[in-house]
């Protein structure tokens, strides 16, 4: 007899339906799985057999064949354990209900308990769009699945529970969550810009970066507060919309980073990978591609501390996702695309010893060593970072000062307003922030008046700025004007923007 159970798997962050077909026929007792299973699925036969036996049920005798259809897509992961087990029990006549209307997901442990799996949210979303609205999922994943509106989620703790439920002897309360209250609770940050003493210049620069979506490079001695500042950047970005939150949650779900209690990533993510990270870890990869840090930072901030210490190959790999807002990973058997729209915040010391330019310490580095250190960051990459700021060491007075800075919520209001102006201005040209301006659009939307033009010319001649620096300055000036609510870019906007080009100033590098 053949039994069919619907399940689902993820490729990238999109789910697709997998039909689990189970046939038990006469012949030598065997258990085989077909339909491009990976090793985790091949191993599932041991888990399934023991889980069924240890649930006090009979594991049927016979030639058992499992087919995962469609057979041409590679299947990965352990989420098929439960559907396979239910299929076997149905084929053996233990379950007599119709399973067609359910999507079943779950890993089995040897004692018949159901464990959580990855990617439940994307699976639920895509299965729902294909007309399925009943889901049997591990209890650990119930919150995640219940976020999707219009689905009925039956959480199960064990195989036996699922069997009893399907046979109608056990009633399982559909899991429902109050999306509004979760959404409200999930949107709270546990850090605030108020916590940062001093560093007014850096705060202002981060506000501008947040307002225009500009990438930032912070340069300063150890202990100046670079990490602390970066951590608080998400708190001044405009709040996530529900759609953005769902997309970010999908990525985190696929990566298996959602906790049992967490249903939604409601705040902009802040990802700070260590500088020894590999390119696959940063961009995403693996035999069966999983999202990397750039995708986990989707709609949020990617913070790279000790920027020049990162492997050069890794840094260069950043360029494509920064440009496209997504990462495509190609494998012989598949190609997946992960979203990766993030703000890059990089931090570095001014020199290998860390104290170049610090009035209270002596720098022990030779000019050549400094040069080597700085040049680890390639031109094309630097080209994509609009704002460079110096974060100086704090003085004793600043450290002891009782003055409390502006709270994040205040700054966020200004940032959100500036972003709104940009969305309005660019609604017909397919971009959403000043950072994305280039070529023709730059000329069209960033006209300078003659005084501003003169100021910029003087600066370029005096500091020896490159053409690259020129466009960056204009873009940042555009954002500063937006923050002020000004349609025109005035000389003071350009003047401030020029300050954010530390790395282009000749004296520093050569």
């Amino acid at each position, binding site marked *: 007899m053949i039994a069919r159970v619907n399940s689902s798997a993820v490729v990238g962050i999109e789910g697709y339906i997998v039909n689990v077909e189970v046939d038990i026929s*006469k*012949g*030598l*007792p*065997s*258990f085989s799985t077909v339909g491009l299973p990976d090793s985790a699925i091949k191993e599932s*036969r041991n888990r399934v057999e023991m889980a069924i036996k240890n649930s006090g049920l009979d594991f049927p*005798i*016979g*030639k058992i064949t499992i087919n995962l259809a469609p057979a041409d897509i590679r299947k990965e992961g352990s989420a098929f354990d439960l559907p396979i087990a239910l299929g076997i029990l149905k084929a053996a006549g233990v379950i007599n209900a119709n399973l067609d209307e359910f999507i079943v997901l779950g890993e089995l442990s040897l004692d018949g308990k159901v464990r959580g799996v990855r990617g439940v949210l994307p699976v639920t979303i895509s299965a729902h769009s294909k007309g399925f609205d009943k889901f049997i999922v591990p209890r650990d994943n119930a919150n995640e699945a219940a976020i999707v509106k219009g689905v009925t989620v039956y959480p199960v703790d064990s195989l036996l529970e699922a069997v009893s439920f399907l046979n109608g002897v056990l009633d399982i309360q559909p899991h429902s969550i109050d999306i509004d209250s979760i959404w409200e609770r999930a949107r709270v940050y546990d850090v605030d810009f108020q916590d940062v003493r001093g560093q007014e210049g850096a705060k202002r620069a981060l506000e501008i970066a947040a307002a225009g979506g500009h990438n930032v490079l912070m340069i300063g001695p150890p202990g100046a507060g670079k990490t602390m500042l970066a951590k608080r950047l998400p708190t001044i970005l405009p709040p996530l919309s529900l759609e953005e939150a769902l997309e970010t949650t999908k990525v985190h779900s696929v990566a298996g980073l959602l906790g049992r209690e967490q249903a939604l990533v409601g705040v902009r993510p802040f990802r700070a990978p260590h500088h020894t990270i590999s390119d696959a870890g940063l961009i995403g990869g693996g035999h069966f591609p999983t999202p990397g840090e750039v995708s986990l930072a989707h709609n949020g901030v990617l913070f790279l501390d000790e920027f020049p210490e990162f492997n050069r190959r890794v840094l260069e790999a950043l360029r494509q996702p920064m440009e496209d807002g997504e990462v495509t990973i190609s494998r012989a058997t598949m190609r997946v695309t992960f979203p990766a729209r993030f703000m890059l915040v990089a931090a570095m010391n001014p020199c290998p010893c860390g104290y170049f330019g610090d009035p209270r310490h002596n720098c022990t580095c030779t000019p050549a060593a400094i040069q080597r250190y700085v040049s680890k960051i390639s031109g094309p990459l630097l080209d994509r970072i609009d704002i460079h700021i110096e974060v100086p060491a704090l003085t004793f007075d600043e450290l002891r000062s009782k003055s409390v800075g502006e709270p994040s919520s205040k700054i966020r209001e200004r940032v959100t307003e500036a972003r709104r102006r940009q969305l309005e201005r660019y609604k017909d040209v397919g971009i959403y922030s000043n950072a994305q301006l280039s070529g023709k659009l730059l000329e069209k939307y960033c006209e300078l008046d003659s005084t501003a033009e003169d100021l910029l010319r003087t600066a370029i001649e005096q500091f020896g700025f490159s053409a690259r620096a020129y466009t960056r300055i204009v873009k940042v000036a555009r954002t500063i004007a937006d923050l002020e609510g000004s349609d025109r870019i005035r000389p003071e906007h350009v003047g401030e923007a020029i300050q954010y080009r530390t790395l282009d100033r000749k004296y520093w590098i050569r």
Partner: protein
Amino acid sequence: MAEPSLYTVGDEGELVALRYLQLNGYEILSRNYRKKRGELDIVCHKDGVIVFIEVKTRREQQFGHPFESITTRKKQQLIKMAKQYLVEHNLWDKAYVRFDVIGVNWPKDGNPSIEHIVDAFRVGG
């Protein structure tokens, strides 16, 4: 029960297993089905399932548990023999099949005890 001599301990153990199976409602189809490649100790039948049984008898525990001597190679051999039996009796893919192991522990100065592993192994995995 009289204590068996050392040389026939295997045969005696099989007889004990045989009696046990009959008491438990198994219909014995064949004993010591022997071919060039090996032997099936007992072939029997219950509830529509053909059961191939390997019997292991041990006098003393110190030579290991009876089931320890069922190695992968032994399994492969039993599977081959079972295939041959099924084909010969026109039962190939016409019956449900199971492999069991019966361990007979027969200490020198005591009575035999039986341990029956139902569905001891399957083809592959």
